[in-house]
């Protein structure tokens, strides 16, 4: 076996975590290599450098969510006085996807340049562990080379998983891997799943004008605050999205004209309907099964996620892992990035700081957006008991919604979960427009241990939705969350 190159740090996976770790390590003068290779989806979709977030996740999702919202704003435009706004105007899927994909390709290019500038050697090859310090690299034509590295970082992320009860399902459905790259609009769509992926995709498809149905096995947004999840569902239903609850698909067949005949059971009864497109969004699995981990001794859990210590070390001393492929980590870009940078700081920069996963803010970009930091109501009651927490709540209506009568007055909500003993705000939940932008700033306050009194003593900006977070007085269980009068 001939070793073609030796590195100090070799990263497998060029996504959010891998790229950040590689660049940071290189900035300390380490000799760094990175291998990124996208295995095509079962439908044949593939993409460039940058990982899930850039190519088939956060970026195209947010752009398409924006596109859908831009369309929904047309009704408000009319009430705001604009003449000739056509609310019946159709959406051009190809124009949107061309613009989205051009942006993604720009990002692929920019990442390649960044690696080059930082002198990180980039391999567009599929990597496998050959030994604990040797990586086998396979190019698209099957050509093989071996590299050696002092440290290896596994940052391979995940891919969508498929239900196992339907034969040859991969040929008949698409996933988020394919949706953003579809050459034609998806038409009448069924989305199977209850995760934020399912709801975000269903949300924007409906907003763009496609007949959208979401099929859910049990609860929506498991792990998130369920009161808010219920209101997200209400809002989506008000906007025309159909939910089929407590149902699972049992068969999918291709029809003569290439549509999908889906059969499902709901409360013991079978139903069926025809859709143009079926999107599976029932979960993601770690992309570790072809890395040869078992042979090398890198331990994973039964779902393929790598088991790591708090300092990102695997069961093999010089092999580390970060991001979505690691057990117990949030599946978020910013945490993968930060974790990768801190790891590089520890390995090459002589620093000691570990990643902190407390009070990580996040936002779901459903048609009505939901931003949250800290404990959900269920998590707080579970950890602290009902007596030790107070929940402040408010249902509010954004000022701008008052131009158009049809806006749902009870849609938006804020909840603050406060610990009785310290008055510390341990959970913040905002359901309303611009959730991501609004919630971001509060994460600093919560990290610093801000109390309800400190929130209340901060002056709000008027007129905004955000100021509602600083003026909560209604207590859940005692007061109505809705203000009376103006």
């Amino acid at each position, binding site marked *: 076996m001939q070793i073609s190159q030796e590195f100090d740090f070799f990263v497998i996976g060029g996504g959010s975590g891998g790229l950040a770790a590689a660049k940071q390590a290189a900035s300390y003068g380490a000799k760094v290599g990175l291998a990124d290779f996208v295995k095509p989806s079962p439908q044949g979709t593939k993409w460039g450098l940058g990982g899930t977030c850039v190519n088939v996740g956060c970026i195209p999702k947010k752009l398409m969510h924006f596109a859908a919202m831009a369309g929904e704003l047309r009704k408000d435009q009319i009430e705001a006085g604009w003449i000739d706004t056509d609310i019946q105007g159709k959406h051009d899927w190809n124009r949107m996807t061309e613009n989205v994909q*051009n942006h993604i390709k720009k990002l692929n290019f920019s990442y390649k*340049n960044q690696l080059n500038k930082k002198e990180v050697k980039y391999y567009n090859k599929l990597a496998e562990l050959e030994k604990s310090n040797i990586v086998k690299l396979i190019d698209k034509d099957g050509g093989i080379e071996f590299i050696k590295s002092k440290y290896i970082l596994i940052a391979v992320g995940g891919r969508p998983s498929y239900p196992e009860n339907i034969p040859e399902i991969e040929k008949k459905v698409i996933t988020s891997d394919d949706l953003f790259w579809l050459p034609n609009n998806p038409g009448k769509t069924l989305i199977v799943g209850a995760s934020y992926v399912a709801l975000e995709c269903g949300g924007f498809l409906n907003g763009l004008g496609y007949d959208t149905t979401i099929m859910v096995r049990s609860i929506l947004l498991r792990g998130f605050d369920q009161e808010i999840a219920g209101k997200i569902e209400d809002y989506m239903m008000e906007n025309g999205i159909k939910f089929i609850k407590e149902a699972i698909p049992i068969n999918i067949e291709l029809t003569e004209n290439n549509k999908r005949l889906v059969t499902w059971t709901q409360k013991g009864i079978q139903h069926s309907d025809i859709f143009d497109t079926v999107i599976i969004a029932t979960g993601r699995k770690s992309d570790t099964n072809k890395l040869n981990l078992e042979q090398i001794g890198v331990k994973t859990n039964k779902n393929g996620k790598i088991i790591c210590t708090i300092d990102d070390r695997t069961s093999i001393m010089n092999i580390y892992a970060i991001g979505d492929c690691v057990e117990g980590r949030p599946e978020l870009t910013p945490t993968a990035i930060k974790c990768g940078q801190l790891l590089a700081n520890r390995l090459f920069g002589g620093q000691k700081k570990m990643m902190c996963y407390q009070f990580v803010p996040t936002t779901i970009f459903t048609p009505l957006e939901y931003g949250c930091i800290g404990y959900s109501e269920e998590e707080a009651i579970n950890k602290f008991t009902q007596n030790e927490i107070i929940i402040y709540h408010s249902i509010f209506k954004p000022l701008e919604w008052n131009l158009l009568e049809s806006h749902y007055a009870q849609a938006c909500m804020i909840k603050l979960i406060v610990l009785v003993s310290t008055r510390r705000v341990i959970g913040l939940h905002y359901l309303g427009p611009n959730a991501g932008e609004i919630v971001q700033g509060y994460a600093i306050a919560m990290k610093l241990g801000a109390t309800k009194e400190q929130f209340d003593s901060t002056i709000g900006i008027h007129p905004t939705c955000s100021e509602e977070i600083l003026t909560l007085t209604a207590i859940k269980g005692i007061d109505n969350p809705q203000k009376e009068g103006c």
Partner: protein
Amino acid sequence: MQGHILTIKTENDWKQLVLQNQKPVIVDFYADWCGPCKVLKPKLHNLHEQSQGKWELAVVNVDIEELQKISSQYASKGIPAVYLFHKGEKVSDFLGNNEAKAKEMATKAASL
């Protein structure tokens, strides 16, 4: 009449057609997904047609795998990135869809 445009596909093309070219060469680094590149392209073509053969126009598609080293050297700040080379040396360059700078470069190229 369309002047002959040099399409750079390999590192060898770069050496022979750009660096070793007897005439001045204006090189356009572009990509198919780049909007401003599409707008600048016909402007460069026009200037080339008007040049009466005083300089050559070469184009480099930055997505070509083989040209990665060259693309990252010259196009790392963004595209369209346009360079004027003469006798293997870079004379001038500009970034973006800038018609005024393109005209300036064409004039300079014609005078070399």
